[in-house]
């Protein structure tokens, strides 16, 4: 069966969160798309789906999930995939994304995005689960690099090599979270520029920009603060290497007024444009 492919879509968008529903519906906001958390709308009925339908009438929507559990040795939850497929059929999203991570094992779900050792065994597990998910969904997935707080020193592959192999084996695409690169690289003493070496940038369909916090000597991916300067700087260095991608500000906590996020998004537009001018 041929899988539908995520389009090359150039644009700037926001993660849609409850405090801003009214603002997005009251007037056409200056965004090219919005991203919603899939699980919040994988419900039976009521206001969530009603709201999403109205949003979809006004904006392209990307579906971003947190519970596909693709890196687990458990098989993917087929009932979950069918619910997601029904939501995708209803919304006709730009694409469906999730994470290169696992959330649980033996039916026990942590509801957190947990790290994988970058080994051949983990690659096999992920590739098998991704193939199954793509088969049920009928579309190639877009997968996000995670923030990690522990490393597996014996794992033989770099994250970039792991992601590259994953794209090659499964035909999946990438959601490059620039904040996650900064967080993981800093936590593990790596150079973010080197982190990206070997990454198949032609597979990137979306970019996340977000903030983090520092605690216990680590950077923690909290999405509760404006995009910090090191993340902007990293984005500026990479924006010129990316083709047509959808860039998004991701904020999940301490959510500010919509105007503040739109101002951050305007900054992203400016950074991307300047980066492209430098490259030209």
């Amino acid at each position, binding site marked *: 069966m041929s899988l539908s492919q995520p389009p090359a879509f150039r644009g700037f968008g926001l993660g849609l969160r409850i405090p801003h529903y009214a603002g997005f519906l009251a007037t056409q906001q200056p965004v090219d798309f919005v991203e919603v958390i899939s699980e919040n709308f994988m419900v039976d009925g009521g206001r969530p789906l009603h709201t999403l339908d109205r949003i979809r009438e006004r904006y392209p929507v990307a579906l971003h999930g947190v519970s596909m559990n693709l890196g687990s040795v458990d098989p993917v939850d087929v009932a979950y995939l069918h619910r997601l497929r029904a939501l995708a059929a209803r919304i006709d999203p730009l694409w469906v994304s999730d994470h290169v991570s696992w959330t649980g094992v033996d039916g026990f779900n*942590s*509801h957190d995005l*947990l790290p994988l050792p970058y080994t051949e065994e983990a690659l096999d597990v992920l590739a098998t689960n991704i193939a199954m998910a793509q088969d049920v969904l009928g579309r190639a997935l877009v997968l996000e690099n995670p923030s990690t707080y*522990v490393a*597996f020193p014996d794992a033989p592959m770099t994250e970039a090599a792991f992601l590259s192999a994953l794209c090659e084996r499964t035909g999946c695409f990438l959601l490059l979270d620039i904040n996650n690169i900064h967080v993981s690289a800093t936590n593990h003493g790596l150079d973010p520029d080197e982190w990206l070496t070997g990454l198949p940038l032609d597979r990137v369909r979306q970019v996340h920009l977000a903030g983090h916090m520092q605690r216990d000597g680590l950077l923690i991916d909290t999405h509760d603060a404006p995009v910090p300067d090191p993340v902007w700087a990293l984005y500026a260095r990479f924006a010129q290497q990316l083709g047509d991608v959808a860039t998004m500000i991701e904020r999940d906590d301490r959510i500010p007024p919509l105007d503040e996020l739109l101002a951050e998004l305007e900054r992203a537009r400016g950074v991307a444009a300047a980066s492209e001018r430098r490259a030209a």
Partner: protein
Amino acid sequence: MSLREVQKRFLADVADTATESAFESPGMRAYARNYHGKLVEALRDTYARTLLWLGDDAFDAEARRYIDASPPVSWTLDAYGDGFVALLDARFPDDPDVGELAWLDLALRRAFSGRSADTLGPASLVADDWDRVEFVFVPTLQARRMRSNAVVIWKALDDETLPPASTVLPVEGAVRVWREGLSPRFSSMGADEYACLDLALAGGSFGEICELLLRWHGAGRVATEAGHLLRAWVSDGLVTALRQG
């Protein structure tokens, strides 16, 4: 070590409250904090009025107890707190208001995103043989007996006004929760309506409901009471269809 062993051990470590602050690795401490923090936050979100009623410290202590006893298994965090009402009922046997408030919180949350259904208007209340008519209700309808004034307390907390002290009702009542259009709703009921609704939800016919009302109200008032019930259920948007049993 196989990936399965790595994942089982990792998750067991992260979920063990006793070791949350004992990890030498700040990374494992971060994952443990994330795990417990997300689950507590999910319970606080679902049980927002119960949280206000118990206060932060008491609520979080019960949440921790629940988390230790009930590892999450669903793909959605929204389903995580389903057993929390039973825990509170068991933990506060002499304070029925606590479990009853929590039940209202949960039932309203379930009604919010439950399955939609078209409801009958008064003009559709037509049947050849009313004795054999059975009711099909909206899928979001739930009901529970209430021993306390939890409904009044919940309303005050929701309105951000001073709630009354909890009391045990002199006569046991009940409450029903459902969604009308996009809005979750609740309504107090007498024990007689609860008994009738319970019977109807179990597939009892209108004739059987009238027999039940006969025991509560006597022959002289059965028709009036049955008419009241029927009007209330239809006008509140509870009934989706009549079925000839």
